[in-house]
């Protein structure tokens, strides 16, 4: 607390020193607040959103899914396993320490220790220091996703986390459960400093006076962040003017917010694919490609997007959303009931069969309603579905048990790259390598496995694109899964709070650059 106050005072003083910029306060509400101030404790949207407020990455995604320089000014590939980054000079941490290559290496080593992040950083061999402001990131094999991964490196203040806390525990320990220095204290280079935090109630931020990015148009000097769990309450808080900015926006209220003269709505096609998996171990019928195809043809996912999602999504026929390398515009949703019936007849299941289905009811937007709709659609090709929906807390253990014949899963690629979908959802399950960890359908295709492994070592973008698109094509032909849609993203703000330029499909609003008129 004392540290918070000292930092706050410093931030405030320096904020006053900035002249000409009109200081504004932003009151915002998300559905949940960050679990921890430690950027390496949990790999989740909440953690990354917070990281972009109190830390800065080496490079970050822009709205076109390209990379913008942040703490790294330039980068170049110097050989097939090495990418060299030049760091920005004169960047200060909140504590006043200067950021150098040593901090970046320290952060990298810590990421390799984090249970949540070590998977993403597994292909990396080392981060070598060339000089005070230059680093080399070296991978074990040629690796195409070095830049994607560099968006996860938020340099931490090495000196700040050095030593031991009052209870004699190392300050840099990553602790999942139980308290730790790093989960309640932070020093980054980011635009904001936390001045007070009451978990689950309120977090307050002040702008960091010594923030390096003087070119940022952002004029928010104070943020009051309140988690509001209930959708109607969050929307009411915006409409009544109690808060300026909310996310997520429930589909039911999109129109209302859009029409309200005092509020602005920003929506974007999302990257999280919602699918059903057909368990071939539990159901011999699903081993027959024609049955799987029949099911895909029987599911009117465009209708689901229109009626249940109220347009708040994009019907899918593949895993990769538009903008990803693997996205193939030729693959289109293929609802065709007559063809579905024919395929069932061809496979010898004209009279159908009965299956069990499970879906969560509070994980994805309208997840239980979608499952009900799909169950209804399958009844038209004589597949009788016994559907069970449950809260996510109970659903995931069931998913791990593969407890039903058809199970719902949504996936967002942590690397923002196509390969990640197949690695987790559709590669042949292998306990040793961890591939196919979420492949509840037990789908297996040797060619797909081979292509995924090959693409991971391909640094030529063209060749990789071809491989990733071929994977999508095979999965499409094989009807490896039932694609539903990519969930849209939506943010809403009071008029004058210009969120459109700062939000992105990854859902890390760059609040440092937010302008309030």
């Amino acid at each position, binding site marked *: 607390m004392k540290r918070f106050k000292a930092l706050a005072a410093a931030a405030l003083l320096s904020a006053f020193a900035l002249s000409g910029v009109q200081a504004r306060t932003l009151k915002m509400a998300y559905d949940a607040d960050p*679990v*921890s101030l430690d950027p390496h404790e*949990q*790999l*989740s949207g909440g953690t990354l959103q917070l990281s972009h407020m109190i830390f800065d990455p080496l490079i970050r995604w822009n709205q076109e899914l390209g990379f913008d320089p942040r703490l790294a000014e330039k980068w170049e590939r110097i050989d097939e396993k090495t990418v060299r980054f030049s760091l920005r000079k004169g960047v200060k941490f909140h504590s006043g320490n200067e950021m150098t290559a040593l901090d970046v290496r320290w952060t990298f080593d810590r990421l390799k220790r984090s*249970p*949540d*992040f*070590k*998977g*993403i950083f597994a292909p990396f061999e080392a981060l070598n220091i060339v000089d005070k402001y230059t680093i080399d990131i070296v991978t074990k094999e040629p690796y195409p996703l070095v830049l994607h991964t560099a968006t996860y490196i938020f340099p931490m203040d090495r000196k700040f986390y050095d030593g031991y806390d009052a209870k004699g525990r190392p300050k840099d320990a990553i*602790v*999942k*459960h*139980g*308290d*730790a220095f790093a*989960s*309640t204290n932070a020093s980054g280079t980011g635009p904001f400093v936390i001045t007070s935090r*009451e*978990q*689950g*109630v309120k977090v307050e931020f002040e702008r960091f006076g010594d923030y390096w990015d003087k070119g940022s148009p952002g004029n928010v000097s104070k943020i009051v962040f*309140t*988690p*509001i*769990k*209930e959708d*109607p*309450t969050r929307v*009411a*808080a915006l*409409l*009544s*003017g*109690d808060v300026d900015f909310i996310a997520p926006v429930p589909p039911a209220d999109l129109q209302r917010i859009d029409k309200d003269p005092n509020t602005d709505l920003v929506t974007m096609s999302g990257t999280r694919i919602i699918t059903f998996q057909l368990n071939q171990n539990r159901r011999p019928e699903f081993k027959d490609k024609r049955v799987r195809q029949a099911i895909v043809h029987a599911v009117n996912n465009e209708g689901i997007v229109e009626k249940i999602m109220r347009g708040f999504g994009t019907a899918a026929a593949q895993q990769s959303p538009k903008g990803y390398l693997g996205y193939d515009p030729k693959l289109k949703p293929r609802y065709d009931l007559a063809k579905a019936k024919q395929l069932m007849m061809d496979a010898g299941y004209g009279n159908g069969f009965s299956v069990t289905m499970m879906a969560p009811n*509070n994980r994805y937007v309208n997840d239980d309603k979608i499952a009900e709709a799909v169950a209804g659609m399958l009844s038209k090709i004589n597949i009788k579905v016994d559907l069970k929906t449950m*809260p*996510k*807390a*109970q*659903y*995931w*253990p069931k998913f*791990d048990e593969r407890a039903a014949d058809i199970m719902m899963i949504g*996936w*967002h690629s*942590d690397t923002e790259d196509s390969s*990640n979908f197949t690695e*987790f959802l559709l590669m042949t399950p292998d*306990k040793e390598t*961890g591939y196919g*960890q*979420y492949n509840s359908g037990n789908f297996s295709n040797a060619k797909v496995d081979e292509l995924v492994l090959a693409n991971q070592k391909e640094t030529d973008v063209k060749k990789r694109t071809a491989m990733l698109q071929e994977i999508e094509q095979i999965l499409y032909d094989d009807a490896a899964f039932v694609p539903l849609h990519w969930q849209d993203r939506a943010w809403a703000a009071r008029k004058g709070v210009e969120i459109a330029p700062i939000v992105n499909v990854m859902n890390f609003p760059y609040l440092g650059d937010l302008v309030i008129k």
Partner: protein
Amino acid sequence: MLAFLIRRLVQAALVMFVISIIAFSIQDNLGDPLRELLGQSVSEKQRQILRDKMGLNDPFLIQYGRFLKKAIHGDLGTSYFFKRPAVDVILDKLPATLELVFGASLIIIVFSVPIGVFAAIYPKHWFSKFSMGASIVGISIPVFLTAILSIYVFSVEFGWLPSFGRGETVDFFGWRTGFLTRDGLVHLILPCIALSSIMLPLFIRLIRSEMMEVLESEYVKFAWAKGLQPRRIWFLHALKNTLLPVITVGGVQIGTLIAFTILTETVFQWPGMGFLFLEAVNRVDTPLIIAYLIVVGLIFVITNTIVDLIYGLVNPTVRLTRPQE
């Protein structure tokens, strides 16, 4: 008196012990806490390592034994999410919930007694009929609907009252209260009304029927025959006897009111322990869930004890320490 309190203490310990066993045995059905602690792509191997570290793979009795041993020293475990002792987390949120319950109780008492008495004395009056009708509606509408409706009417449409949260609070001898600031009071209005909306109709009806019964009793008839002032009969003789059963029911209902705070607090994003509990269930924060159940069990026992004490004061014929026969 002392013997009574000691007996209650033993009862409380027993109640909490039973709750802890029940809570502990259902925790496996609540879900997997690791899902909420770890990112989606963490490997199964990593999960197992953490599960071992947290002792989640141990057999039930070992886990429960470990819990009991700590519980005897007042440690009910550490919340996964808050990373602080579960009891501390709950005690932090307790004032918010108690103030909500207090505000709602105040509304209930202030409105139910006069309306109930009036309806008993003048059963044919239009106001009595209106309040009986309204109370039926009040009982039938669920709390969360009342809450959301009131937010839309008073915050969004009219903009009179804030839509969520506790507003400004001040420290009052270590108790963070919203009753002492204007902002805090304004924030209390809607949640308190929403919370009282279930109990208020119930109490109006209860007081009315009890009062009507008392008005029919022999001693009231005798009082009329004696020519006493109507006021004296209604408010001194009849009301006092009416309130006896009301106090009993009220004591039990305060506990229920605490249970209803779960819904009210969720809708209003009220940072109390009801909301905390619902969140804990969503996150499978088992230590916090168990601690909450035990604390609420304790509150039930305490309120019932207090009610019994008050009952003894109001009705001298009830003696708490009856000699064992």
